[in-house]
């Protein structure tokens, strides 16, 4: 059996899943809108939290946050559940599928057989939608991929019960009830203010603009402190977090720019369009950072390209994004 579910490929898994689930209930929420209304944009650098011996660097909010925040802001009722027993986890999905409900699930990426082998890492924050069952296979709408895929039940179970950091524990979530009309402006106001506040007014030096400055300071010291090889690995790690599958490019800045643009058009607020363009420029600067950074990783840095120059690029981004978010905060006040 297969639920009649419109699958749209997207850049990022959680915002894609959220958008697909809401569209299934008749709400026209694109991926960019889901990302923006879920306050997906973020910057975090936490040097003492390590993943694979590398510091935590993130360009998005905590996993699960996008779905939670979008649905809360739009007045959509949801249900979420985690499991201890794989049998119970499987039975719950089967029951929902039989009732015709598409089920969002958090899984690990490593055990999903349809993932390109080169991208199979122990990453437990992947999201997808289960849309049907055929014999012993589940039909999966994975927003990173162009088509609905089929995945054998044992592999799927292993992915749902992947171990390690942020283990998904079979987590599922689904829409229980969605309103016919939503107040986009109110949702956007709260979402934008949320992002601006975390970027600008964080009390800890690890998040937002302050986090970018801290990373610039540490990045400068990497070659001396860690040696050339380890410094390159740290830098490569940062580029992966920024550009890896799911960011839509430029550490999510392009998706957020698309959100501001769509919002400006749907709410007829032309003042948001220049802010979208500024966010695009910011994404382009992050791309530039990745280009230079990748050359340095390979030890092929050109004239004038060094860790110190990269740190300056990052500080420049921090200044510009600081100004941009302050302006955005002002614009959100009138929404």
């Amino acid at each position, binding site marked *: 059996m297969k639920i009649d579910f419109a699958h749209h490929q997207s850049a990022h898994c959680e915002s894609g899943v959220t958008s697909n689930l809401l569209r299934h209930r008749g709400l026209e929420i694109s991926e960019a809108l889901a990302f923006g209304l879920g306050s997906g944009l973020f910057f975090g650098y936490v040097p003492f939290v390590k993943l694979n011996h590398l510091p935590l660097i993130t360009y998005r909010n905590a996993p699960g946050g996008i779905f939670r925040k979008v649905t809360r802001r739009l007045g959509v009722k949801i249900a979420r559940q985690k499991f201890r027993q794989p049998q119970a986890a499987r039975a719950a999905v089967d029951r929902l599928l039989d009732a015709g409900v598409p089920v969002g699930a958090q899984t690990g990426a490593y055990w999903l057989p349809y993932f390109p082998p080169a991208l*199979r890492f122990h990453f437990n924050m992947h999201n997808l939608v289960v849309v049907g069952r055929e014999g012993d296979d589940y039909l999966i709408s994975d927003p990173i991929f162009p088509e609905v895929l089929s995945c054998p039940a044992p592999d799927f179970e292993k992915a749902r019960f992947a171990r390690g950091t942020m283990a998904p524990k079979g987590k599922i979530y689904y829409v229980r009830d969605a309103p016919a009309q939503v107040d986009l402006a109110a949702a956007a106001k709260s979402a934008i203010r949320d992002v601006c506040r975390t970027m600008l007014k964080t009390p800890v030096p690890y998040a937002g603009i302050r986090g970018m400055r801290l990373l610039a300071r540490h990045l400068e010291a990497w070659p001396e402190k860690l040696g050339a090889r380890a410094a390159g690995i740290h830098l*490569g790690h940062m*580029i992966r977090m920024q*550009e890896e599958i799911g960011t839509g490019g430029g550490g999510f800045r*392009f998706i957020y720019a698309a959100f501001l643009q769509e919002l400006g058009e749907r709410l007829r607020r032309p003042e948001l369009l220049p802010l979208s363009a500024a966010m695009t420029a910011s994404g382009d600067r992050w791309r530039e950072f990745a280009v230079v950074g*990748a050359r340095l990783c390979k030890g092929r840095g050109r004239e004038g390209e060094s860790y110190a120059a990269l740190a300056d690029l990052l500080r420049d981004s921090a200044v510009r994004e600081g100004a941009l978010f302050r302006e955005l905060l002002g614009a959100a006040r009138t929404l």
Partner: protein
Amino acid sequence: MRKDQVPQDSCLLAGQREICYAIDEAGHYVLTPTAGWEPKNIANLQAWEVIRDQLQETLAAIRAGRASALAFHMARNQMDVPLLAAYVDLPRWRVRRHLRPDIFARLKPALLERYAAVLEISVAELCTVPERIELPVPVEEK
């Protein structure tokens, strides 16, 4: 990023395309497929080189009699002791002991099967190591 500048540097996606956000001539955002991007490929290949180096060190240790075959298969699956221990539901200190060749050689079949099931290989494969390291990406051996 402009639509006509969306990179198509194929390398790691095995023919898959992912989506990125770019603007068209009118400044409008459109979803554009991309086959990959050079800086990202470099960063990803670098991550695989780290895995390869680790595998080579492990192989050398096994051949010198300092580690058991389990150490190779653990590294091959990008796992460390805490992660493997979580998968086989054993305390970490026991997994760490099983990385010693003398102790691994005396393991009971039931325990070997538990490891083999988690790593999705047969018990025979678990007890041996391959001649060459095969990785799903084009990184050269050192």
